């Protein structure tokens, strides 16, 4: 499988701000690749570098082997779905979708026929004559998708496309996007700050923080082998124990993280190879299928433990304010680099 997009030590600086700071990254052809991170982490700037709206301050960016630095957006074989959809308000839906073909000089009847097909594909067949302003958020999203896909790009860039949708619609669109990507077999580069979204859809995820990439891996690897405390904390919930606390609790200074669902009350785990930590139960949060228990250990650190609720009934292992000893298998400790 060839490389679709390649970052080689790419930086993008605005005066003294390093929006993207020396990142290297390979995105494979046909991959559903997510760029995940909090706002200001450089993920959107990286996407805009691929699209051509930004130019790298240094480093080399290749798209299918071709150096892209200096190439304007209209000469790149990538298309973008914008966060605000960016549909042209003075054109109807059909002309919006056909816009790219019009620029290529495709005849009106031909481009309208193909735009109709694209609209069918995103299940908006009968909406061609409407103005974008007459559509709902989810429908606009589909039009933006159809408009970007009609040019048959080899890479589709999606800039937080689901951010403005409500929860139900967002979950539905996640499934549809993933299905669409599998059908078309083209590379999707998906920018999001929602780790659940990135985890559920992606083949691989790059976790961004402060302009740098913390880790690039498949969702399962990110979850089970986070490289840094930031990744452990940002992807799923994690109890992060830094070096100092680690040496007090387990006797060595290597930082580590433990997922809340790996922790149990000490009585529920067999003796061999288990770490035990005494603490005090602070709070219980009932969440339906599970309950979360906040436990204070070592005098100041609050640790989350998540226990399944049998038949939806929470059975607290202790009363609030009472002592509670926690335990986790030592192989559940995820060693962290930073």
């Amino acid at each position, binding site marked *: 499988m060839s490389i679709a997009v390649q970052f080689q030590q790419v930086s993008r600086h605005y005066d003294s701000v390093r929006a993207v700071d020396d990142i290297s990254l390979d995105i494979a052809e046909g991959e559903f690749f997510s760029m995940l991170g909090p706002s200001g982490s450089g993920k959107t700037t990286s996407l805009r570098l691929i*699209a*051509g*709206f930004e130019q790298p301050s240094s480093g080399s960016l290749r798209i299918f082997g071709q150096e892209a630095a200096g190439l*304007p*957006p*209209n000469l790149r074989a*990538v*298309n*973008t779905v*914008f*966060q*605000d959809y*960016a*549909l*042209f*308000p*003075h054109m109807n839906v059909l002309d919006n979708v056909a*816009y*790219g073909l*019009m*620029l*290529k000089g495709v005849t009106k009847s031909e481009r309208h026929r193909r735009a109709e097909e694209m609209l069918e594909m995103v299940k908006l067949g009968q909406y061609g004559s409407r103005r974008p302003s007459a559509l709902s958020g989810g429908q606009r999203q589909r039009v933006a998708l159809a*408009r*970007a896909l009609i*040019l048959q790009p080899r890479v589709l860039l999606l800039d937080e496309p689901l951010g403005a949708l409500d929860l139900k619609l967002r979950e539905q669109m996640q499934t549809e996007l993933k299905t669409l990507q599998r059908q078309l077999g083209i590379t999707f580069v998906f920018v999001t700050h929602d780790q659940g979204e990135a985890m559920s859809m992606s083949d691989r995820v790059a976790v961004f923080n402060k302009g740098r990439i913390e880790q690039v891996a498949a969702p399962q690897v990110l979850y089970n082998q986070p490289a840094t405390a930031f990744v452990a904390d940002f992807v799923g919930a994690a109890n992060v124990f830094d070096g100092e606390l680690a040496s007090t609790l387990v006797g060595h200074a290597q930082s580590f993280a433990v997922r809340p669902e790996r922790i149990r009350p000490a009585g529920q785990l067999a003796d061999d190879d288990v770490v035990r930590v005494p603490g005090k139960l602070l709070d219980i949060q009932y969440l339906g299928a599970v309950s979360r228990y906040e436990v204070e250990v070592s005098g100041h650190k609050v640790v989350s433990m998540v226990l399944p609720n049998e038949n939806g009934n929470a059975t607290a292992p202790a009363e609030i304010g009472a002592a509670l000893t926690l335990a986790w298998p030592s192989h559940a400790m995820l060693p962290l680099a930073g």
Partner: protein
Amino acid sequence: MHSDQDRAPLWLRLLAYGGIGFLFLPIAVIIIYAFNAESAGYSFPPKGFTLSWFGAAFARNDVLQAIGLSLQLAALATVLAVLLGTLAAAAMYRRDFFGKNAITMMLILPIALPGIITGIALLSAFRLADIPSGFWTIAIGHATFCVVVIYNNVIARFRRMSYSLVEASQDLGADMFQTFRYVVLPQIATALLAGGMLAFALSFDEIIVTTFTAGNEVTLPIWMLNQLTRPRDVPITNVVAMTVMLITALPILGAYYLTRGTEDIAGSGK
């Protein structure tokens, strides 16, 4: 529900109507006496209704020439202003550079400056550059204050337009000109039309800057000023004044309706 208590007190209403009367009565007088059968001026009540002054006014060559010149000037100044104002707005929008505020100030200044200063400044500049006064100097003079009308309208529209529209167009394969033609221009079209109509009206009845830059040319406002010394032509002056009012009021009304509810019409106060 409206009760009597919601209404303004009587004295306030009288004052408001008085203000409106003060503003519009002189205009009404001009219109009424344009149809007056008597030729000697403003005797009250009017002696009878006639349309003959219209015939007399439009049979006079100096009137027609003045109207023609003013229309040409207004059209040229508007075209110059549309080109320069749009370019200026496109350059200033979304960019930050050294001296940007100063340039914005310089663009807006001509409409705030007293016309007499603009006029003297232009006259000295033209003298220095050895440019003879005439049609083109008037047009340039008018363009100085028309540019700002276009600039303000267009930049306001730019600010409301999401820049991702431009990026989307590029992303789908458009070069700069195609993006301007298919995306930007349709977005700013009504702003250009509204600004253009205002600029046209501003230029059409401008007299102060014109006086300094006109040389021997007689635009319509200058013709009317000259008429003040000829009491026998009063009804003809009234007819021409009414025509000027119509020509300037219609574009302003048009601009108002085109941009109603969307933005302020910058510069409409001049």
